[in-house]
């Protein structure tokens, strides 16, 4: 059985599968790309052929336009095996955002899984992570420190609604990333019984529309830009993290500035951003999830793409798992996505 290092190589363009002739989440435009999910650090424009889930392709078209999303776009359903060159390729849910997939590759009996970004917590907008036994597991490490143990997202939504009830005359503006976090928050709010219209910053509208078209029903959404101050009193507004404490937020009624991100776990981070109500809601695996996943996939070797690799490799080493830091520059650029 060939060692995985001999056929999946870390190059300046990202991970390259030699016997298949394709890159996974390439960092620059390439001939043939397999894309795990639509976040801009993983799905970049300008590849000639793109293979991804139907949902990820739709998201890419919304974000970068039809042309930049790949001259040839091919969709692959979860569990369908496709032979590319000499390699069998299939996708399984990663539980990160709608359409997010792990890429499983098998060549001459050797199996590698590139998980992209993933989480293990429940998310009503996307199917849950499916562990795949493998020889090498390629993982992210965004929150790979034992201080990151995300609380239940439902409980954090409870804190938001509690604050809305206590300050009904104020606008709660929640800073959140436009792909994934925004729609997850909306669905969690709906599950918690919030059936009033939810107001959106302009930057969030297009992807919510795409989610709707892909069958994720988000309920009544309104543009925050045209709403009057009076309408926004007592309302929940979702906006990009960059907008919540800036000029844009002046239209709101005495805003309570909230932010939904795994980084909110650390007080200093929340304080720096001027956040009054930090909500610890993340689309990335926390410390316990990362370690549990390593144990479940039972790979003797783990490659870490980006994040706090030192701690994760140390913890894996204590359990006899060999760790390797790929240090792929270019992933995790968007802090706000966490």
């Amino acid at each position: 059985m060939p060692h995985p290092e001999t056929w999946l190589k870390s190059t300046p363009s990202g991970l390259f599968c030699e016997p298949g002739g394709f890159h996974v989440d390439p960092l620059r435009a390439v001939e043939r790309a397999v894309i795990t999910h639509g976040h801009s650090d993983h799905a970049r424009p300008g590849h000639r052929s793109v293979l991804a889930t139907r949902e990820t392709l739709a998201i890419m078209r919304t974000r970068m336009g039809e042309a930049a999303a790949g001259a040839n776009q091919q969709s692959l359903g979860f569990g369908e095996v496709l032979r590319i060159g000499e390699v069998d390729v299939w996708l399984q849910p990663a539980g990160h955002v709608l359409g997010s997939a792990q890429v499983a590759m098998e060549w001459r009996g050797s199996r590698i899984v590139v998980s992209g970004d993933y989480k293990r917590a429940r998310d009503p907008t996307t199917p849950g992570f499916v562990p795949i036994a493998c020889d090498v597991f390629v993982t992210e490490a965004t929150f790979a420190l034992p201080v990151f143990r995300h609380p239940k997202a439902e409980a954090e939504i409870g804190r938001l609604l509690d604050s809305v009830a206590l300050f009904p005359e104020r606008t709660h503006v929640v800073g959140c990333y436009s792909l994934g976090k925004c729609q997850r928050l909306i669905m969690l709010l709906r599950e918690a019984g919030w059936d009033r219209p939810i107001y959106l910053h302009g930057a969030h509208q297009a992807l919510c529309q795409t989610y709707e078209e892909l069958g994720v029903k988000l309920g009544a959404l309104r543009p925050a830009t045209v709403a009057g101050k009076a309408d926004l009193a007592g309302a929940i507004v979702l906006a990009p993290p960059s907008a919540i404490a800036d000029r844009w937020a002046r239209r709101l009624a005495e805003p309570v500035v909230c932010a939904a991100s795994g980084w909110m776990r650390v007080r200093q981070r929340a304080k720096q951003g001027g956040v009054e109500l930090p909500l610890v809601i993340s689309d990335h695996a926390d410390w316990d999830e990362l370690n549990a996943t390593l144990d479940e996939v039972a790979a003797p070797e783990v490659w870490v793409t980006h994040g706090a690799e030192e701690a994760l490799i140390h913890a894996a080493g204590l359990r006899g798992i060999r760790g390797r830091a790929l240090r792929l520059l270019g992933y995790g650029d968007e802090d706000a996505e966490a």
Partner: protein
Amino acid sequence: MIAFAALLERLVFTPGRNTKRALLRRYFATQPDPDRGFGLAAVTGELTFKSAKPALIRELAAARTDPDLFALSYDFVGDLAETVALMWPSMATNRAPPDMAEVIETLNAADKAELPGIVAGWLDASDPSVRFALLKLITGGLRVGVSARLAKVALAEMSGGRVTADDVEEVWHGLAPPYASLFAWLEDRAPRPDPADAPVFRPPMLAHPLEHADFAALDPAALRAEWKWDGIRVQLVATGGGQRLYSRGSEDISGGFPEIIRAMDFHAVLDGELLVVRDGQVAPFADLQQRLNRKSVGAKLMQQHPVAVRLYDILFDGAEDLRTLPFDARRARLEAWYARQRPARMDLSDMIRFETLEDLAALRDGARAASIEGLMLKRGDAPYLPGRPRGLWWKWKRDPLSIDAVLMYAQRGHGKRSSFYSDYTFGLWRSGADGRDELVPIGKAYSGFTDEELTLLDRWIRNNTVARFGPVREVEKAFVLEVAFDAAQRSPRHKSGVALRFPRIARLRQDKPAAEADRLETLMRVVEGQAAPRTCRGAGRTDSPS
């Protein structure tokens, strides 16, 4: 502790006073006794534990966590208690998190050797937010960002308006955690707690700034005038139950001024100004500042910065409440009391003789000593009323000084102003080491401007940023601000060697080139008292927050 931890999570991130008040009110109204009482004590800083130290947190971390992972985590988080609260590996337990009463009673009774085991058990039973509150509480590192006054306002609101914050102040210092009798009173289940002989604080009577509109309506014959000294207002309370020195904000500052406490061998409640006095001369405020915010004080500091109290009112003579008497009658009682007692380290505030308002205006303008802020005007027929009643007492400050400075840095404000650059650092010119002129920062201002001026400054700052350091923007050195201030004092801690008291923006001087802004030497002459105060153009728009 769950509710207290949740309250703490909100309070530490909330800039708004009204928001804090609403959060506190709900906490007090929904939590049971005695937990809410201990929560109140924690918020107002009345809880201290001798046995638990930060070293305990390190010890616990070492016992339960991998040293490499702990080091990486601590490095990332930057706060010891927070790191341990977040990464604590809980052992399975059926126990509920401890409540406030359990924590306090256990810690007060526990032996030092038992502590690590007890605290570890609590941490196991808690979530990160409770663990954080617990660790900060027991090691004395709790920073809530709530004044004791604000907590009392929230308590008063809880009573539905029956009890005011001043009423709460009156009984506060006679009570102790967990304040069961206070809550019972607020909820109308019991009568007002009787402070009996306890040396409690009495809400003070405060003055309004004198506005132009008030001036015409003043009747000089009904008015009494005194100097307004630049110290801190204090209340001296001496009863059979003890002696206390309180700040205007009801903070017990007795520990910092033992020589005053020792001089209080009488039975009375007095109102006065705490000052540093050397050979009968009142020293500038900066001298007094050396003595403030200390829990205790050494002999050397007491000798170098000797304090005294200039008395101006008497609230109680023995057990007799004098507050309903008019000012003139109280003044007579104060003089008689003083003649009888002759307390050390105290003298009487002079009554200033005058005939007309013009006399007063001349006196006010003639006051040059840095230790005098202006005049106090009081109606001779006014009783002593808590709060800030209209039309009875006025403070008439000297015109502020002003200087033309150049805007150097700006930072975003808090709360409503969080989207605006509203904190300004400004500087004056001086000769640099290379002989060329350079700007040296001399202070920061957050107030004094109108909404329109704020919008203008915000836009200008965004368009003229030359560098960014985190939340701070450095701007083009091109915008002149007229800065008003009450006094300027030497300060070795500042790069410029000078500190301004109550600086605020008086005017935007976009008409003025930056090169024509003032020089540091000009300001230093004010400090030395060589220059007469320059009357601020357009002053009086804002009053300092004294």
